């Protein structure tokens, strides 16, 4: 039974590898050769993250959520360093995107600052848990989390402008509401949020996961802000991206102070993802978003299962 499953997974590996040939083949070739010179790894990492940067933009996901499972599964680095680099990747991406979103009003400080405080506080605790757990347990937990994220991508449905009957007591007290102009129609959207306390409590969990695995948490922020609290989708996406710059900052400092950020891994990754994102933005108008999204889901499942099996000691 187990052998059949592993055979099927290997066939899946080949299928996904053929879908992203350059980066996957380069990594496989380097990994299969013990005499690979050290400089090949940062170079291959740069190429891989460049591809991930393109794919992330085309699929509308954060680079961090792809970076940790894929680099953690196929590169020879310890997961501590991969998670440290993953946080820096997510942080750099959020800092790059945040200013434009804030100036356009697509990210809102009053919506983002309270949740950022909760998520950043708990991401510190998550970082300590992640750095204390044994590697195999962490690999399995990461694998399970990544598979759950893939399933969330398959089944989650967003709502462009959720119906919010009115602000609740907490959002009224914090004055969490505002307006933005929907560029496609030129209409003014007045918004507020409800179920604020439930939303804030959810960010405890999101912060823990972000810090523990070094993942950007846009995949979780957006559904909570949009579906649970009722923020319009564009505002939820924009505010989520911005608040990652705060959540990831606190966890990044823990990893930095623990010595888990190696420039030789983090710097090529940041530069690769940033350049890839620029190319991705240019390709966006010509791409087929559904096809890319399916590819990302396949990549996540593949990396998640791989990570889980690695943790079990099967691979």
């Amino acid at each position, binding site marked *: 039974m187990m052998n059949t499953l592993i055979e099927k997974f290997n066939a899946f590996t080949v299928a996904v590898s053929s879908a992203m040939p350059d980066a996957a083949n380069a990594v496989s070739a380097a990994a299969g050769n013990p005499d690979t010179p*050290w400089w090949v790894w940062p170079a291959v990492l740069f190429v891989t993250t460049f591809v991930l940067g393109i794919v992330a933009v085309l699929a509308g996901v954060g680079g961090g959520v792809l970076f940790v499972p894929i680099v953690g599964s196929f590169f020879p680095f310890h997961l501590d360093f991969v998670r440290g680099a993953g946080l820096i990747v997510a942080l750099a991406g959020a800092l790059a995107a945040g200013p434009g979103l804030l100036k356009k009003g697509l990210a809102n400080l009053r919506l983002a600052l309270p949740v950022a405080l909760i998520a950043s506080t708990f991401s510190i605790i998550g970082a300590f848990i992640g750095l204390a757990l044994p590697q195999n347990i962490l690999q399995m937990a990461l694998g399970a989390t990544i598979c759950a994220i893939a399933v969330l991508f398959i089944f989650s449905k967003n709502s462009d402008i959720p119906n919010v009957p009115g602000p609740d007591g907490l959002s009224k007290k914090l004055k969490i509401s505002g307006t933005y102009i929907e560029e496609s129609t030129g209409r003014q959207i007045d918004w507020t949020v409800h179920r604020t306390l439930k939303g804030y409590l959810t960010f405890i969990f999101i912060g823990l996961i972000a810090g523990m695995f070094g993942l950007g948490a846009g995949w979780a922020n957006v559904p909570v802000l949009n579906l649970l609290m009722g923020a319009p989708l564009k505002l939820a996406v924009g505010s989520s991206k911005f608040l990652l710059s705060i959540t990831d900052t606190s966890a990044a400092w823990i990893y930095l102070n623990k010595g888990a950020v190696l420039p030789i891994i983090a710097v090529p990754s940041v530069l690769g993802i940033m350049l890839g994102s620029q190319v991705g933005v240019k390709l966006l108008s010509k791409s087929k978003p559904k096809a890319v999204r399916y590819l990302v889901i396949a990549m996540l499942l593949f990396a998640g299962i791989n990570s889980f099996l690695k943790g079990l000691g099967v691979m």
Partner: protein
Amino acid sequence: MAKEQLAAQQAPKSSGKVQSKMHVPAEQVAYANMINYGQWLGVGILVITFFIYMSGMMPGFVPPSEVAQTWHLSCEEFLKTNGMPHGWEWLGMLRYGNFLSLLGIAWLAGLTIIAYLAFLVPAYLKQKDTPFLTIVAVEIIVLVLAASGILGSGGH
């Protein structure tokens, strides 16, 4: 907060009249501008210092080839094996390329703290917005604590 935004907040609805311009609070724009220039400066520092490290213009505390032999170890074992410093000690060792490369990363990780202090604290103080002033103050404390290494640095 500006009067026009307050007016909009008191009547939330899903769609409304066509408008050409949107009000974005001044502190939000100032914060965005600072982050924008700061992150480009950070990327510039990353590129230059990493080039210095990789080109060998400044040697690494541990040569890259030796880093590659130990990057499969946990960070605790890695530090021990290579005799690397803990916490902020790297700041006193910027003559080594690998520690110099950490400057850009630390700058990126510190930007939010600077922007909070420079723009959000004064703005909410001026507006006498106690809830958000408290949120921002506590966030600064959290981030400074995380950055300081007081919460734990080095080995587990």
